[in-house]
């Protein structure tokens, strides 16, 4: 008897739905074992997580606060991944967006008419994210420099630059020495919907709709899908691949930059520690789990944010060690990610065939044609 791991010939709809569901069930069971081992009733813990993430409108709004940056960066990363451009740099692009939005909010508010401060922060923040993404894109498109390394390195530069700004030149003089800028003037505040959940949600939904349309219904999106699925064919039919890489990355970076803008203008309303907490990396998971589908990104980002909030919640509610929340998040994510493999592949058990097939070999007919 052997076990064979083989690619599914055809992925049915039932499989597409069942695999994530079963993965979730498995993930919950796995997490339950861990919880039991630390002496906690898993049902109570899961209930607390659910409650913490989705229990009432307040917890939903907190989940939404985490979901919005995941949505925007997830969309940005998905665009790049569609073209098989490994943009690991969402975190840095987000940081640059936040940085420039901060600069506009704090230092241009006297120069600009007040109604235009927030739009200027948004647009310039997006431009900053796009520019940050354009550097590795240009290097890859015209000099074949590996983008995985460059986008990752650009993250460190951006994160440290942001940190330097709020520790140093932009530190709030009236902040009793705490690292962080002064609070933005009100004209630079992104409106909130409920609690801390802000208007960034609309940006994410609009962005997903635009992306869906662009991918499915425009020449540019068509070229992007062709290039991602078969670059050789793309070159053959005359697509200008370098230009496509750069334009796709400008869009990707702009969306990640927008996530940063929303964080500083909608959530913190100042620049301080907590802008770069890894949304840009989690965005990679979001993009993959949603199979690079824009609407899928929104859904996955929301669920994943729930997991993050719920995990934090049980730390507090159940008195578990801080690490336990993270362990549980990992334990839940792992089977979910592993499970997606089974949507494409399956295990098959091969038994040796019974040796009774047919009668002893017969003389072979030389003709079977009339």
């Amino acid at each position, binding site marked *: 008897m052997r076990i064979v791991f083989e690619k599914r*010939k*055809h992925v049915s709809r039932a499989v597409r739905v069942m695999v994530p569901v079963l993965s979730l069930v498995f993930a919950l069971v796995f997490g339950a074992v861990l919880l039991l081992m630390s002496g906690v009733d898993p049902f109570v813990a899961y209930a607390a997580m659910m409650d913490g993430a989705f229990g009432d409108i307040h917890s939903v709004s907190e989940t939404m606060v985490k979901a919005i940056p995941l949505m925007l960066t997830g969309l940005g990363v998905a665009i790049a991944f569609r073209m098989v451009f490994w943009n690991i740099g969402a975190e840095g692009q987000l940081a640059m967006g936040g940085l420039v939005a901060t600069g506009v909010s704090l230092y241009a508010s006297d120069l600009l008419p007040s109604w235009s401060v927030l739009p200027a922060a948004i647009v310039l923040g997006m431009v900053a994210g796009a520019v940050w993404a354009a550097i590795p894109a240009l290097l890859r498109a015209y000099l074949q420099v590996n983008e995985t390394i460059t986008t990752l390195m650009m993250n460190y530069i951006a994160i440290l630059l942001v940190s330097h700004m709020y520790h140093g030149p932009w530190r709030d003089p009236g902040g009793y020495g705490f690292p962080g800028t002064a609070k933005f003037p009100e004209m630079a505040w992104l409106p909130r919907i409920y609690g801390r959940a802000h208007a960034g949600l609309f940006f994410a939904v609009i962005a997903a709709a635009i992306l869906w349309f662009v991918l499915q*219904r*425009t*020449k*540019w999106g*068509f070229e992007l*899908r*062709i290039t991602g*699925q*078969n670059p*050789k*064919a793309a*070159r*053959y*039919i*005359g*697509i*200008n691949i370098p230009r496509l890489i750069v334009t796709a990355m400008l869009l990707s970076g702009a969306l990640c930059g927008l996530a940063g803008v929303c964080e500083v203008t909608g959530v913190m309303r100042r620049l301080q520690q907590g802008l770069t907490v890894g949304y840009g990396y989690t965005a990679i998971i979001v993009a993959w789990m949603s199979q690079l589908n824009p609407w899928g990104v929104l859904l996955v980002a929301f669920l994943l944010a729930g997991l993050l909030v719920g995990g934090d919640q049980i730390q507090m509610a159940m008195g578990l060690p801080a690490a336990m929340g993270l362990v549980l998040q990992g334990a839940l994510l792992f089977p979910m990610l592993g499970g997606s493999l089974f949507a494409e592949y399956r295990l098959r058990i*091969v038994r*040796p*065939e019974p*040796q009774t*097939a*047919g009668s002893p*070999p*017969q003389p*072979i*007919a*030389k*003709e*079977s*044609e009339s």
Partner: protein
Amino acid sequence: MTGERLAVPVLRMAGITKHFPGVLANDHVDLELYEGEVLALLGENGAGKSTLMNVLCGLYRPDEGTITVRGERVDIQSPRDAYELGIGMVHQNFMLVETMTVAENVVLGLEGLSFQPEFRRVKRRLQELGSRYGLQVDPDAYIWQLSVGEQQRVEILKLLYRDVDILILDEPTAVLTPQEVDDLVEVLRRVVKEGKAAIFITHKLREVMMFSDRVTVLRGGRNVATRSTSETSPEELARLMVGREVLFQLERTTCELGPTVLEIEGLKALNNKGLPALRGVSLTVRAGEIVGIAGVAGNGQRELAECITGLRDAVGGDVRVKGTCITNCSPLRAIREGVSHVPEDRVEMGLVGDMTVAENLALKAYRTSELSRGPVLFPDGMNRFAQQLIDGFDIATPGPHTQVKFLSGGNLQKAILARELMACEGLLVAVHPTRGLDVGATESVRELLLEQRDQGTAVLLISEDLDELLEISDRIAVMFEGEIVGVVPAEDADRDRIGLMMAGQRLDEEGAAP
């Protein structure tokens, strides 16, 4: 005839049945192989030849049926089991490691190999085998240094080194010159004379007649007939293989020649390894003619096609289309100048497998106003366009929204042709357009090319199939090592002479190029 053989078959496959999801690839297929014979396994694409042989060499397990080797029932679970029974296969795409030497490739995967193989002994044995069977190859040469014909010899040596006595060859002649084919025949003759036996898979009738002692014909996964080669004819085999009479000789027609469309002058280019691939090629193609490029794969044909279509930069010389110089232009510019291209790598380059038939058909026309307005695609237009091509070119597909990867090889090629012919304005570069297609599809592709020519297109046809070139081109240019060694009118071309030219002999004074 062979019914009363005295010998026991060395191999008998009986009632082999193999299902794949939705396909019955082998339906109770029987096959017998005797010592000292070469058996041809003939059939169209999808007739189940490769499946049957993959069952035999342990890559697939049959759903039903038995295999008997030298009178004993066997259960072959893996290629290793097959080797132990003396069964080995030379696959169509060679399984060699390019950066290793011949000797290293031969011992690769051998069981019971010591930590440091004794290469001296391996080499001695290789030389011995080489001289015994006429398979001389330098054991220290690296695979990438060898010609395709030599690589094939290495594959055969690999089998002989493992004492395989049932050799399976999957379309062994596809990449060889006529002379190399003769050498291969000689090798096989020597191998079977020693009591070994060989099966070769093919869909070419000439080869069956040339190579084999007996022939088993499959059609649609079933046995159709087994014949002694000496008692059959190509016509009968063709009828058995396709189940209908085949139009063997298309009526040779010519078409009024128009102005020169493609002009190539002293074209020089490098291959992917940076070595000269084109060494000053000059050629013209006029509207209303098909110029065939004959030659063994790897003599610059690929680079020639790529230079014309903008996929490769030349290092010297000129390419002009309808008088416009397009040397080193972008692929898009070449398309805009009216160049269409049926690429050699159908699946890797010509199509996007996961996209739908409609999207694949629109890969070039999406830029036109029929399918898009400004930056926005026009889905209704795309569907209409696809349906028009599916009907017009008789592409068998469940619908325009089926993923193109589910189409059969012949229909994939029809889809590419449909797209390229629709986009064609002046020049069509077709590279191996019928390679791997069955007789029916081959015929329709050739007819499409002729039709296109009659409409006044200049066609550059690159093919390894000499019969095809003789049949449909108007002139044949033979390429060897990056040069055109001669151009002859197809009607009075002599295949032996072309064969010699393909092997590097220059056309001498008597038949200078027109």
